[in-house]
């Protein structure tokens, strides 16, 4: 569904360096949801390497750029079957590794919890004594998470009045790239973490091979126009330090999604037949498994598609 009214756009600077000294790296459209007829520009900061959308939609356009059928709002077992199962297993394993040192009375906060996918996994596979909470700006997502019995604070973490120094662990999975002011969000998380508490950030990696191949236009990680800031290890470390965190660990994580979506976007743009495009979506088992294997190999060399930073207060 394409709306022809142009989006209201605003110009921004690099959120890490606070300058706008950048080179264009990619130009593309909303290949996935076609929420507007605009073309968007990804700029790369000349000092820190941050890739950011500039100009980007005004915050008032949120409703439009996140349509009803946006996938983060309903990654259900019914719709995503086998892929859902595999992903749940994999994510559960990852989550439990992150949580292995947590005490019995740990409080865990999922910032940008969406429909509660990760919190539900923790509830299912983690210790029953843990307190699990989520934060999300989107009411629709939060409602879905609440429906499954989770505690969700609706609003942005910097505006919510959560108790200071009260959480042992915060996770931000594929969230930092969506937020308006990453530095404000990280600082807010810093405040609510207990001293020594950790924040795990997972986000698209711009030091990956898929970025290198597809950055001109089709890279899945651009997710035009919804990903506003995209990091590599250097820019994410700089931002974390700026917000007062210690970088405890910085590594990459396997994901086939950006590979699959880069190809998807290319095919859509070239007007490929839909049966071919359908082979490259979150529902296509074959391409997801093939690119998982490829990315597992790349991950061995620290070039996985996702960046995972463990930051400590």
């Amino acid at each position: 569904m394409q709306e022809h009214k142009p989006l209201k756009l605003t110009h921004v600077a690099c959120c890490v360096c606070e300058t706008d000294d950048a080179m264009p790296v990619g130009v593309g459209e909303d290949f996935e949801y076609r929420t507007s007829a605009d073309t968007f520009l990804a700029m790369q900061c000349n000092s820190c390497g941050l890739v950011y959308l500039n100009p980007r939609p005004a915050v008032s356009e949120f409703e439009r750029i996140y349509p009803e059928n946006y996938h983060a709002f309903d990654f259900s077992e019914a719709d995503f079957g086998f892929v859902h199962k595999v992903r749940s297993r994999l994510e559960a394993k990852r989550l439990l590794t992150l949580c292995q040192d947590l005490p019995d009375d740990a409080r865990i906060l999922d910032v940008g919890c969406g429909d509660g996918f990760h919190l539900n996994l923790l509830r299912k596979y983690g210790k029953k004594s843990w307190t699990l909470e989520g934060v999300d700006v989107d009411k629709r997502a939060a409602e879905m998470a609440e429906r499954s019995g989770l505690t969700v604070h609706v609003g942005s973490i910097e505006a919510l009045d959560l108790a200071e120094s009260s959480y042992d662990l915060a996770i931000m999975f594929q969230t930092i790239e969506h937020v308006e002011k990453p530095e404000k969000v990280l600082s807010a998380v810093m405040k609510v973490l207990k001293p020594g508490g950790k924040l795990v950030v997972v986000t698209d990696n711009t030091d990956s091979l898929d970025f290198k191949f597809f950055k001109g236009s089709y890279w899945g990680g651009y997710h035009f126009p919804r990903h506003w800031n995209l990091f590599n290890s250097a820019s994410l470390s700089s931002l974390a330090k700026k917000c007062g965190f210690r970088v405890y660990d910085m590594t990459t994580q396997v994901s086939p999604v950006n590979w699959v979506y880069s190809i998807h976007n290319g095919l859509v743009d070239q007007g490929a037949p839909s049966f071919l495009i359908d082979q490259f979506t979150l529902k296509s088992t074959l391409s997801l498994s093939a690119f998982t294997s490829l990315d597992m190999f790349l991950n061995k060399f620290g070039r996985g598609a996702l960046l995972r930073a463990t930051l400590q207060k």
Partner: protein
Amino acid sequence: MKTEKPIAIIGAGLAGLTAANYLNRRNVPFVLYEAGKKIAGLASSFKDAEGFSYDFGAHFITNRLAAAIGVSADCRIVKHYGEKVWLGGKTYSYPFGLVKIPRMALGGIKSKFASNGQAPRSAAEWFRKSYGRALADEVALPLIEAWSGARAEDLSAAVGESLPGSIGKTLYLKAASRATGRAVACGYSREMPESAGVYHVYPNGGVATLCEKLAEGLEDKIKLESPVSEILVENEKVVGIKALGETHEVSAVISTAPANILVKLVRGTDALDAFGGFRYRPMVFINLKFDGRALLSDTVMWFPEKRFPFFRLTEATISMPWLAPPGKTIITADIGCEKGDEIWEMEEAELASMCLKSITKIIPDAPARYLGYNVLRTPIAYPVFLNKYEDARRAFENTTNIKNLLSIGRNGEFAHIFMEDVYWRTLNKLRELVEIST
């Protein structure tokens, strides 16, 4: 920036407005002085009563530039762009079709082996060395001479060096263009990398749309019909400007005036004198309106042979069908001239009939299709890179010799740059200026 004094921007074209927009976003005080009644400068276009649109010369806008300015949703995609050369009554695709002519290919190969290791000292040497003698002497050099009005021996080698990149890249971009059905930019963006995802677009409201978007919200800071008559320099620093007889203190000046005019505006220094001799080539554009479409075999056709009065014909509707009413077209003939010469002084009707006569050699039924004409003249169409001021020109690429005086834009930089280049280069120069003065 701490200073209370504003920066003066001279000229409200693409470059001046890009500068204004940049300063506005950073809350740096400025005033933009425009001599004309409206904004847009070289980027203005107009439509006649019959529905034909005219731009001042061809403009190459990419989707990347449109996205950067924020007008992409109001643009149409240009589906095709191509160039051909007319030689000996035949058309050849440019540049690779010409290689099919044996003597051209042979000359090219010979030149690769005959290199004496010396850097070329003129455009003539550069083209003979890079393209071979036949291609240089029969195609490239006559075109460059007609376009610049100077002998190829007197032009600097930089004329050639500024031409597009490698053969491999060109072939790739042309193939991408065919595959995607979009006019992928090839040789029309020098500042930023070219790729299959960067293609030509055209704003629904004409080229001026870009300027209008940049000017949004700046209305109070743009002074129309306010030509700047003097730029006042003290101790090698700009301190003020004079406009409409009044003097205003400024912290810097950003000029988009042609380089040789800028030299005349500056008072109190001789630091710019070396740039006073820079020459621009005047040009007459004769727009001929016809019944029919795709009368030429491609958007742009080059005419190196002297028997044609023009060196280039452009049928813009092949790339941008919306520029003329359905079933009709415009062909623009470009003739280089000097102010006051026979062409410059010629009556419009006479120019039109002269061009029509020549076009009939290419389109035999042109007279039957002919609907009328429209003539545009500009005294500053292209910068001419003469060898005699090459050192000064190179110096001018980096500085005006006055730290707080910038010269930006196509005419201001005295450079063969396209719209997107103007945009990025202006931003880079502004960034430097604002950082220095902060």
